[in-house]
């Protein structure tokens, strides 16, 4: 019977079945400091050990500071949490990538860049944006702390099989439009709960044309439509990205792996529970106006008059009929597991071209990992950003989750490459507009939201 990519990944990992659920084998687990203290505590309470420590990899990213990393962490709680992760990993035999090391970074940036993330695997992490890794054709999804403990102890999870949704992007993106805009267009179309219970596979010419970075951005945002899993079938772009990565297979193992990975595509006649088609060539840059990622408009339109948005517009201090172009901003953030990779930094840098951040705007660039930071510095991007008035920081989740001291004051308005515009997400009372890295750079320079397609000319 014809199978979808999701179906193939699922079937390959079923250990047992009961009551309509499957016990799914988990190949890889990424751990961070915030969602695992209680998981390790539960292991200790139950007297359990980690079944296959070599399949787990830990790094601190959520609460770490993005400045003065040569000094001890100021925030006592954050310092204790990071130290505890390191101690827990040592006690249970799990590899920990040190904060001061060359491989530290956001879990969803370092997994792929180290080749820890591979096609055809199941990968979990106590973070909802684990959907990112689906860009490689891996069945990847976010879990809670209890499940992190279960995976450590048993290498498995009881899961219900998801329904399937295929989102086909026809045609090619126009210049100035990116994977972030594709993601926001999709979320705007189906809504914040539109894909709940589904595994989403992205397909079509525009998806095939995306780099791995772009595919990661797209899969990353899948959770904002309610689906825990986003997928892109692996292809030559995937293999070229992974070849020679530190933890990717080598030699004969590589050849065997690629041969298997080539089978990981939905069969031509596979049926999906839901199909959505979006014309990629018609997508304009998108900007969120509200407090949920599905409250989003393409540039060139005005905010709708709809009572459902009253609360959000009140919080955002906007009105029906307003255009997003021209809305003044006082903060700009480039980074996160959504848009903190080298390609994202290059896209933002390309917009700057000798110009300077507008007066009154505080702009931050937070590379997604130490490797991204080193690569960007090798290209001189750090100097370019700093000359333009951006702050160049150390890797971490930073202003996307605002758990460290990168936090906005009440009433601040931020153009942000992150993934959530929830009330208070970047600081109590702060307002977030989600958009692409190029759009954020353009907004930082202008001091207001502008159409990057006009700035870039």
């Amino acid at each position, binding site marked *: 019977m014809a199978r979808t990519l999701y179906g193939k990944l699922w079937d390959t990992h079923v250990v047992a079945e009961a009551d309509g659920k499957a016990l799914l084998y988990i190949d890889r687990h990424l751990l961070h400091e915030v*969602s695992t203290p*209680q998981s390790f505590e539960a292991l200790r309470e139950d007297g359990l050990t980690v079944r296959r420590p070599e399949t787990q990899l830990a790094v601190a990213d959520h*609460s770490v500071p993005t400045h003065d990393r040569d000094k001890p962490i100021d925030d006592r709680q954050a310092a204790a949490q990071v130290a505890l992760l390191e101690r827990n990993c040592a006690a249970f035999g799990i590899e920990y990538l040190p904060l001061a090391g060359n491989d530290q970074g956001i879990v969803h940036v370092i997994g792929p860049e180290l080749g820890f993330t591979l096609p055809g695997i199941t990968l979990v992490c*106590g973070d909802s944006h684990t959907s990112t890794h689906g860009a490689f054709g891996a069945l990847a999804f976010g879990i809670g702390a209890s499940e992190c*403990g279960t995976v450590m102890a048993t290498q498995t999870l009881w899961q219900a099989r998801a329904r399937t949704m295929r989102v086909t992007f026809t045609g090619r993106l126009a210049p100035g439009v990116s994977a972030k805009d594709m993601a926001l267009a999709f979320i705007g179309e189906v809504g914040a709960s539109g894909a*709940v219970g589904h595994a989403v596979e992205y397909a079509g010419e525009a998806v095939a044309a995306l780099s791995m970075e772009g595919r990661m951005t797209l899969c990353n945002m899948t959770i904002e439509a309610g689906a825990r899993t986003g997928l892109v079938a692996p292809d030559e772009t995937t293999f070229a990205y992974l070849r020679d990565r530190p933890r990717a297979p080598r030699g004969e193992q590589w050849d065997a792996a690629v041969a298997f990975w080539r089978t990981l595509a939905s069969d031509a006649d596979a049926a999906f529970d839901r199909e959505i088609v979006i014309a990629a060539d018609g997508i304009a840059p998108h900007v969120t106006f509200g407090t949920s990622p599905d409250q989003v408009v393409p540039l060139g339109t005005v905010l709708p008059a709809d009572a459902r948005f009253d609360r959000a517009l009140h919080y955002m201090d906007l009105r029906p009929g307003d255009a997003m172009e021209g809305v003044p901003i006082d903060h700009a953030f480039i980074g996160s597991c959504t848009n903190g990779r080298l390609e994202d930094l290059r896209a933002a840098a390309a917009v700057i071209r000798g110009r300077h951040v507008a007066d009154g705007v505080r702009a931050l660039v937070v590379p997604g990992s130490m490797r991204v930071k080193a690569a960007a510095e090798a290209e001189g991007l750090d100097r370019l950003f700093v000359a333009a008035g951006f702050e160049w920081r150390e890797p971490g989740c930073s202003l996307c989750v605002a758990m460290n001291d990168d936090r906005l004051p009440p009433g601040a308005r931020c153009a942000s490459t992150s993934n959530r515009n929830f009330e*208070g997400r970047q600081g*109590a009372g702060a307002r977030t507009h989600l958009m692409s890295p190029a759009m954020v750079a353009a907004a930082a320079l202008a001091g207001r939201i502008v159409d990057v397609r006009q700035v870039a000319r």
Partner: protein
Amino acid sequence: MTPVRIVEGRAIPLGRKNIDTDVIIPAHYLKTISRVGLGRGAFETIRAEPGNLFDEPQFARAPILIAGDNFGCGSSREHAAWAMLDMGITAVIAPSYSDIFSGNAVKNGIVPVVLPQAAVDRLLEVARDHPITVDLESCTVTTPFQDRFAFEMDPFRRECLLGGLDEVGMTMAQGARIDAYERGAAADRPWLSAA
């Protein structure tokens, strides 16, 4: 985990849609390394609003919360379930949940009841002044006014809640099958053996 069969008492008629886990427990509380004590940060931004429902004396330690569509969307933080449990909430009634939140809820003995919006609207009205009963044995929600709403729940989750079962225990029982799977996978996909 404590088994749960019936949750009975006052229900906070919140009603709002897309209550995300940042609203349930803001990120700055996630620096804790414990599962207890998070109730003080639960729904912090809503509780800061004057005249909010959480401050009304009849809803103090209410065991039920009624919300709109897509409850618990956003972050996977299990702290959201721990914070609600710490407040005394052991059942939620909503038209839909985020997949990750409902899983986390069940693992902590919180019953995520799914009912259609019309039923939720009726319960929001009743809950202002009257108690509500969630019965997991019969899978119904009832009111003192003869309202009776049947709900469906995944049998696996229902068994876990009724029996107070934790997933690690149920999974450990499958040890021999996990061993067998690993032997097969190591032969089929040898490049995964050395991570």
